[in-house]
């Protein structure tokens, strides 16, 4: 039984194997927590005030045009209702809007819809990303059903989202003059770069195309014009001919909203305002009366929704949203109050909380430190609560 050659089974003495990895042991007592709460309180209140200031600088005007009147005293909504399931457009009586104070900075025009469930599961998945990415498949994905085929032809772009593309056309006039609106830059760059590409055959085709592909495809059912008709004068183009699915309005629409009530960016107002220093040099809208001319073709009343135009400036935090600022102030205040409460607790009960087996106690100073660095066999101070929690 030669045990000379046998290896000892003695375990290795490493910090990992012996479970003696150095550890930081944060202690949750009033004493250790109160500085954190004070610091948070002191920091958050000014941050909150700053955020509120940004949010307050944003001006915003909403004009609901759901029930605008068309020609002949009928609301456009009713006109559309008369022809359910068929594309109808109705020219709204111009809607006047008084801007009491000028808007400074870049003004954005949004359309806002309510009760429109873009986030519904069946709606969300009803699209074909491959088709949209410019790779030409003869048949759209099944997800697009039932918006994938019409009269034997494949729908392009297919799916419920594309089918329900917001088709109203909004124009802004000031003193009879059309205010120039910019469409470029409303969509995400990455969407334009990767997700939405017009297929090559489309781009190569000239005008009303003779490309053979046309024979197999057709427009979404709810759309007003055939795809190749869109270059013709028709109010304002929904799709520029040479853009196809790269059309920014279309790309914006296809990025589905989180909630049933949402806004989507429609145009950027390209209008200069007289600033105090140099006239006509900065972006903005001067005070005064404006008229909106709207081509109304997107039905919302049948499902109890509304449509509005929103004029808004932005801050670095985006649109008007006082909540974040308020939250910072409230949380800051709560932390300060808790800090004071903890201070009271700490003064009254704090010291009794330690047991000192080895007389290596950290007094109140321990609270200021972020924690204790305990190494191997060193028996540093322990608190009861570590035991009980």
């Amino acid at each position, binding site marked *: *039984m030669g045990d000379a050659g046998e290896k000892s089974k*003695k*375990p290795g003495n490493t910090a990992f*194997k*012996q*479970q003696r*990895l*150095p*550890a*930081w*042991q*944060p202690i*949750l007592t*009033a004493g250790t927590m109160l500085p954190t709460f004070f610091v948070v309180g002191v920091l958050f209140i000014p941050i909150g005030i700053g955020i509120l200031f940004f949010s307050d600088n944003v001006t915003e005007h909403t004009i609901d045009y759901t029930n605008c009147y068309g020609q002949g005293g009928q609301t456009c909504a009713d006109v559309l209702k008369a022809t359910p*399931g068929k594309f109808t457009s109705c020219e709204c009586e111009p809607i006047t809007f008084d801007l009491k104070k000028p808007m400074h900075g870049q003004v954005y025009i949004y359309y806002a819809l309510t009760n429109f*469930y873009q*986030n*519904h*599961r*069946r*709606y969300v998945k009803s699209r074909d*990303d*491959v088709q949209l*990415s410019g*790779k030409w498949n003869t048949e759209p994905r099944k997800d697009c*059903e*039932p918006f994938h085929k019409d009269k034997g032809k494949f729908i392009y772009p297919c799916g419920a989202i594309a089918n*329900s593309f917001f088709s109203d056309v909004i124009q802004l006039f000031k003193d009879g003059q059309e205010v120039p609106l910019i469409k470029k830059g409303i969509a995400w*760059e*990455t969407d334009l770069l*990767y997700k939405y590409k017009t297929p090559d055959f489309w781009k190569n085709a000239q005008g009303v195309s003779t490309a053979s592909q046309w024979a197999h495809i057709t427009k979404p059912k*709810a759309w007003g014009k055939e795809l190749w008709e869109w270059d013709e004068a028709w109010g304002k183009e929904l799709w520029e001919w040479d853009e196809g699915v790269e059309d920014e309005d279309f790309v914006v629409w296809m*990025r*589905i*909203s*989180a*909630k*049933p009530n*949402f806004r989507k*960016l429609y145009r950027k107002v390209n209008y200069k305002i007289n600033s105090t220093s140099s006239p006509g040099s900065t972006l903005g809208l001067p005070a005064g009366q404006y008229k909106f001319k709207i081509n109304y073709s997107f039905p919302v009343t049948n499902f109890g929704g509304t449509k509005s135009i929103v004029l808004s400036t932005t*801050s*670095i*935090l*985006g*649109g008007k949203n006082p909540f*974040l600022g308020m*939250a910072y102030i409230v949380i800051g205040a709560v932390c300060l109050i*808790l800090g004071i409460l903890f201070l009271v*607790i700490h003064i009254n*009960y704090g010291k009794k909380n330690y*047991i000192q087996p080895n007389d290596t106690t950290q007094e109140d100073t321990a609270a200021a430190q972020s924690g204790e660095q*305990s190494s191997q066999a060193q*028996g540093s101070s*322990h608190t*009861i*609560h*570590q*035991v*009980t*929690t």
Partner: protein
Amino acid sequence: MTENEAPAPSNDESSKTSSEKRPSKKSKVSAEAKQFRRIESNKPQTRKYMSNEISSGKYTIITFLPKFLYEQFRRYSNIFFLSISILQQIDGVSPTGKFTTLGPFLFILTVSAVKEIIEDFKRHRSDRSTNTRRVTVFKGNSTSEVTWADVQVGDFIKINNDQGFPADVVLYSSNDETGICYIETSNLDGETNLKVRQAIPATANVKDEDIPSITGHIECEEPNRFLYEFLGKVSLDGQHEEALGPDQILLRGSKLQNTQWIIGQVIYTGHESKLMKNSSKAPLKQSTVDKMTNRQIFLLFLLLMAIGVTCATLSLWWDGTIGSKMWYFPQDTSDKSYGFPLTMCTFIILFNNLIPISLTVTLEIVRFIQAKFIDKDLEMYYEVSDIPAVAKTSNLNEELGIIRYIFSDKTGTLTQNVMEFKGASIGGIFYDPDSIGDSQNSPLIKKMKKNGKDAEDIKDFLIILAVCHTVIPDRSTGELVYHASSPDERALVMGAEKYGFAFQSRTPTTVTITVNLGTPQTEVYELLSVMDFTSDRKRMSVVVKRPDGSLALFCKGADMMVYDRLSKDSKINSEKMVSGTQGHLDAFSRLGLRTLCLAIKPLQESEYKAWSQEYHAASVNTANHDKAVAAAEERIENNLRLIGATAIEDKLQDEVPETIATLLKGGISIWVLTGDKQETAINIGRSCNLIKDDMQLFIINQSSINATYELINTYLDKLHSQYGEQIPEDIDAAVVIDGKTLNFATSKAVKADFVLLCTSCRVVICCRASPFQKAEIVAEVTKKTGKITLAIGDGANDVAMIQKAHVGVGIAGVEGLQAASSSDYSIGQFKFLKKLLLVHGAWNYNRIGKVILYCFYKNIFFYIIELWFAVESGFSASILFEQWSIAGYNMVFTSAQPLAIGLFEKNVKAEMRMKFPRLYVENQASFSMTIFMMWVAVGLVQSAIVYVMCSVIIGHGIVWSNGREGGLMILGNTVYTYVIIVASLKAGIEIKAWTLPSHIAIWGSIIVWFVFLVAYGIFCASFVTSGAPTDMIGIALMLFQCFAFWLGLPIVVLVCYIPELVYAVMKNHFTSTSEEEQRRFEDVLLEDQDSREKLVLKHESTIAELVLSNICF
């Protein structure tokens, strides 16, 4: 016993024909009669026996898949995940894609499969190396080398020194003329001492060339698992039969040592060998935590179903009332395919992770490494015998943290099983061996030299010690070393040697000793008959022919056994001497010493002759063997003359008293189950610190059921009057019960009261308990109390108890490895139990509990957000997050945090836990249904906070100064990011000790998510036209530019954690007020110091002093 004396073949029918037809019939006739097999020599066997090829593997290539899948799908959770995976394949039903459950599920199955394959491969490989070992087999007139796998029943084989036995073999002969060989059986029973085996004289002269001419047979029992039992007969010529016993059996698993060669015949092969018969699989034990987890999973399953039904109902209602008006929806499909069942399936798929898919794998990894921590603990490594702690199972790691009862064996566990000869009482006079100094001048020797009245007794006393034993002398190392199967025997032989009666050598028929009383003389005692020590007989006797030619019976055994057989004749046994010896015996056992009595009986030649024939007849009687032999032995072991008694000290193991004191303070009740006498047991109890001086003792030692019942109830009434109707569970009292009384106490009528009495007391000592009784008690307490039990022992007799208890701990030590190998955890010393329970157990319980709760929490937190979102998305089961991010939640982004908790969390340091055993009890509150509910509530509240706040801050979508709108994916990924951070921090709050790996797990997971966000976006952008998911393209870019996203983060995290932090602080300050707690800790501290001082005192006074101070004469 010579061949001529062999009686005619026995009249038992079965011995003549053991062909295949008969035995089965016989077994029906009488269950008691054993079945026999007849093995032909040098003839074809009459029936087919098992192959000697062994396979311990679980699977073969063909059976792997079905067997593995069957094992896996016996778990409910796996069936659940499989169902989810299948449901996801139905078109349009799954909200999260087709493979988001199947993928992770296959991954988990693959991990299990790989683990199984690796383990099985190891088994197959070791099987193959065993099966292909070679051995010499006689084939006709020649020999050939065959593999072990090809060895067959009936083969004659030759084994050389240091070779192992390929099967169970009957020893025919060895190079020694008398047929003696030595074997080492450590693989079999862990005992490292050499054992002797001896061929019967009839076969001892068989040589290689005789083999072909053997025409006889062997008849033996059918295979069984008893290592030390064997019954059989051998015949060389087919006519004369000789009895075979355990001494002629060489078992597979043992090795030939110190012997050039042996020849034997194979009787049991392969899985029929006794070794394989013993390798029964330990019963599968499931931990309490696992059972509770299953209940919690069931609750979550109910929650899932409730959510499914509610959401499906709301969904159909919404579709019917509101949704139907939405012209932009794909209406026509909805009517056809969206019935209630499918809608419900959709929601069940959406929320399926409320039952966490990763929990099983996480727990398996955590437990595996926790077990490794136990294996690697230096403080549980026993340097002396190079034995580290070994966790044989990882399923019970956390069970070690909630032990309520410890059942401990005594010998070898609490005591070292190292025996020392501590005293002799000869002829009623006490002699102290410690005072020998110069042995020739000790009072004992002096007296003997005086040739006085006592000299003869003293001499016989020492001769019995030197002759009547089974010790084997070994001079192979040059020095004389004694190999003994029991340490008592060796202690006695060495004791005799000290006084000059040195055992020198033995042959099967003689024992040689040297007597040194000034001048050394060699004396040879001829052994005529040997009656072995067994647990039933509790005595050993030999009939010897003294050098002067006279015959005598020497008997050495337990006091009761010897006293029962003493001659009543007062000329032989004087009253005074017998009672004097009895007084010494009592004194010895009060000191916790083990005692044996020695007796002698002179025999006449004729008397012996007559008896020896009866005895031989009995020993070849295969039918009623045991009874017949016992009766024959009774006939000669009577009318004995008492010579004296011996006292042997059973030394306590290291730190036993301290360990017991600590464990008792840890709220654990300790039961000692021992084979010792009541007095010895109580004294060991005292020296172990189990019984303190001020403790109430309830001694139960009655001779009838009624008396037992009455006594127990008297005690119970006493307790009731002290403590009222409800007796507390940890009274500082001890119950001591005798093995015989235990039979009454565990009878149906008394059992309930007995268990009630015992479970009320902190300490219970059962004396003279048999292995069966030990197991029965453990099972009874386990069943009755529902508390967690731990059994610890070191010997084969503890195996039953170890397997019955919730947790079995084996001591790998002197009595062999059998207990250790059937245990769940094996340690080298009893004292390691302290760290195993107080530190590893408590930590593991805390860790596992937290891991499980955390896994539940993180999934509730994450998936319930989808429920809040459903309210705003028309109950359509629309998903807020990108589908593969969802799949990655458990597999990647929150997989490291539970591991950090499970492996590195230390709520209290090891030193503290060892110092304050009360912490062990407090720790047990860290996992319960209430706490589970609290975690679930935290998950629900946090999910609402995160969703509502994000939806107010980000939900409207205009979150950049360039006026663009974010939409669903920006909200979803913001929520997701916050979820990862909040969930990681939750792990952080639960972790009380942040090690480097914890930091990596918590911060790393958050970083990995951000990296994923970027990388996955880039990946998708590159493969858009190939159909890659497009949702994540550009998200990282837009999200990182969003100030609201960054500013919202601290606010949301704070709102989630302010309540929790305040709760934690308040709890620390105001529940079970700290002042009180501190007082209690001081108590513990002081108590600790006190008991330690006492123990030191106890240890300083040696046993010898105590012996002397106790015995007055």
